[in-house]
């Protein structure tokens, strides 16, 4: 799943470490999220969206054709 995490984070001027501390995950998790290697839980997605004052849909881009199980 693609996301705009890196863009929102850099717009805010936060480092990966700062964002990781704000949402309570490791920096490696933020790196994996930004590279699209890890899909977050719904709770983490909400926490991230809340940090940027956006909706989950604005932060994460879901495409059905990328979802093999759909």
């Amino acid at each position, binding site marked *: 799943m693609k996301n705009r995490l890196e863009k929102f984070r850099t717009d805010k001027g936060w480092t990966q470490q700062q964002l*990781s*501390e704000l949402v*309570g*995950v*490791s920096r*490696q*998790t933020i790196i*994996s999220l930004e590279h699209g*290697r*890890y899909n*977050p*839980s719904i*709770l*983490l997605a909400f926490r991230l969206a809340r940090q940027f004052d956006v909706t989950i849909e604005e932060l994460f881009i879901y495409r059905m054709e990328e979802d093999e199980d759909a």
Partner: protein
Amino acid sequence: MRNLERWTFSILKWGLVFGALGLLSALAALLLPMKVIGEGIKQGFLPGVSFLLVGLGIVSIAQYLYMRRHRNTAAQIALRERDERINSIRFRAGYRAFQLSSSLGFAVLIWSALAGSVGLPTFSHEGLWFAFLAVVCLSYIVYVAGIVHAETHG
């Protein structure tokens, strides 16, 4: 910060529990008569359990003392402990290790039970011990390799 305090205190708590159980086990090995519990339990099982539990207790208490002194490191470790991606990696690696250990353990059990009756080579008592040791070691290797692979490629 309160979560961090609670987490470091729980490490101390488990250290004390393990240590106390280890000492109890050592006392039982010293005080219980051999006639009642048997030589194997008095000289093999109970001392072995004591070493394991006291060792775990010492490691946990040392970990607690280190974390009391190094709060930043403790915070990083606490964060990693509840990080959902890391927990998911551990879960998947653990599941693979469980699949392997249960399959191999079952295979060794079936082999040792049926090999003699179908003319296959049988395990000696020592051979059976080494076979189960191999199952345990392989499970650990698969678990650690699963974590390392996911951390480097995931």
